[in-house]
């Protein structure tokens, strides 16, 4: 049978993580259909129909679907579910909120956050914040799977011409009401998706000293992270926390400054492509995961680092 992927979008554009999820979904079975639930979301349905991996787009449109309310999305998805062997979506806050509600009503034990498709029913997923990998096989008839977007490349977005069909509306929930969404307006990239992340730990000694990190983040167009120790010490707010109990990040470049490398921090960043550690303690565990370690006092090293960056003719953005 076919795979149904639930698209995430803002009614105008497809969210990038949906494209990564499409890649994984078409590895499960290449008869991939995408469900777009939204308000005036025709441009979304159209752009998804042009993704070559997508064989069919089902578009359900109504004013009640302007915002993501899992209680409103779920009955629409359940109506479609009988035709599919797999229901999938991205494992970000969108999919994490939505998929278990669908799975429970299908009486399916969900497979969360897969990083590899081994076969139609067998997947690889990280447990213990990536400190172990589990190979799991779903024995449920209908499978509900969420996909870690950063583990799959985004699907190409042009060249396809899937048909778009209209799907059926259902009644909205009376128990949940959307009030507002405050998008964090920042010139900086989001921590979870940034290409470069620079993080500070307890070694920063104060919140004030984070300005050394900010200056480099500005230069590199990087997101700013922190260890739990820095957050607990009050240097920075906990939305910056990288680690098992914070955000898990996989940037191209991760720069850990004044971070010793507690297990809980490593769990949140050790899958980064290139890791730099700057620490004055040469024995700090962070060096064991670093591609480039610099044993130095960060208060000397950071201003110099900025100086060196300023000397470069070009910096990748």
């Amino acid at each position: 049978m076919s795979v149904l992927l639930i698209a995430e979008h803002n009614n105008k554009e497809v969210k990038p993580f949906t494209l990564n999820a499409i890649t994984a979904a078409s590895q499960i079975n290449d008869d991939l259909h995408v469900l777009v639930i939204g308000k005036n979301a025709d441009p979304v349905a159209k752009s998804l129909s042009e993704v070559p991996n997508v064989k069919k787009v089902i578009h359900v449109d109504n004013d009640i679907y302007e915002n993501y309310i899992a209680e409103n999305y779920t009955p629409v998805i359940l109506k479609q579910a009988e035709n599919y062997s797999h229901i999938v979506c991205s494992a970000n806050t969108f999919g994490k909120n939505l998929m278990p509600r669908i799975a429970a009503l299908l009486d399916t034990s969900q497979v969360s956050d897969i990083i590899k498709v081994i076969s139609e029913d067998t997947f690889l997923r990280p447990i213990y914040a990536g400190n172990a990998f589990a190979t799991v096989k779903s024995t449920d008839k209908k499978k509900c799977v969420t996909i870690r977007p950063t583990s799959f490349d985004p699907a190409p977005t042009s060249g396809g011409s899937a048909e778009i069909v209209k799907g059926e509306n259902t009644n909205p929930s009376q128990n949940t009401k959307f009030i507002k969404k405050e998008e964090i307006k920042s010139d900086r990239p989001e921590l979870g998706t940034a290409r470069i992340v620079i993080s500070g730990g307890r070694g920063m000694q104060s919140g004030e000293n984070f300005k050394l990190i900010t200056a480099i983040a500005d230069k590199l167009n990087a997101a700013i992270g922190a260890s739990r120790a820095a957050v607990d010490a009050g240097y920075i707010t906990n939305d910056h926390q990288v680690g098992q109990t914070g955000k898990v990040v996989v940037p191209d470049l991760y720069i850990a400054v004044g971070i010793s490398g507690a297990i809980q921090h490593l769990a949140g960043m050790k899958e980064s492509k290139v890791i730099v550690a700057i620490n004055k303690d040469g024995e700090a565990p962070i060096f064991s995961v670093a591609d480039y370690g610099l044993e130095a006092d960060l208060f000397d090293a950071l201003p110099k680092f900025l100086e060196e960056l300023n000397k470069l003719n070009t910096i990748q953005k």
Partner: protein
Amino acid sequence: MKILVAVKRVIDYNVQIRVKEDGSGVVTDNVKMSTNPPDDNAVEEAVKIKESGKAKEIIAVTVGEEKAQETVRKALAVGADRGILVKAPCTIEPLAVAKILQKIVEKEKPDLVFMGKQAIDDDCNQTGQMLAAILNWPQATFASKIDVKENVLEVTREVDEGLETIEVKIPSIVTCDLRLNEPRYASLPNIMKAKKKPLEQIDASELGIDIKPRIEQIKVEEPPKRKAGIKVSSVEELVQKLKNEAKVI
């Protein structure tokens, strides 16, 4: 108002996980266990709501082996009034936990159910949403702020783009983010008092539901190791390596 808080006993977040050589799982013998961190936030929030006079009773519940009652005792020590341990085998999937909690909800009739957004062992992030689904209750996941109003909760949620605020009718399920509050420590006198608070034990097999795993764990392995890196001697060298060797800046 009555609040049910679900807590889970997991390997402490500061422990280095070791994978068993036979690939059957991770080593849990002689390993420090504690309450799943965001479950502490869930307990804290319930206690705060009770302290504000908006809730009368807090019940802490866990599902797991005999020892999991430590987690309930800890919740009792920070302010829950009574506890429930539902005894079940170690491997129990979120769907089964949700079905067990459904039975507890039917019996206890709470107005709110709180729990952490995710357990740091299996990292599933499912139980709260699944419980909401089978009870047909609204769900407010990843909560970083909860306002208890007349018959409704206004909940601020941590989402990828920033913050989202929704209103859910009571009864409802809330899964808690670490940003929700700062969990308090239990004082010694309160730990002593908690030992006297009632803790009911129920065997999951008495609840008449199917809790058999549906997901077969084929193997657990160590993630691929990173190859050893190098130490650079100066900032200049570091920047040159990043530019010309790693090509990331």
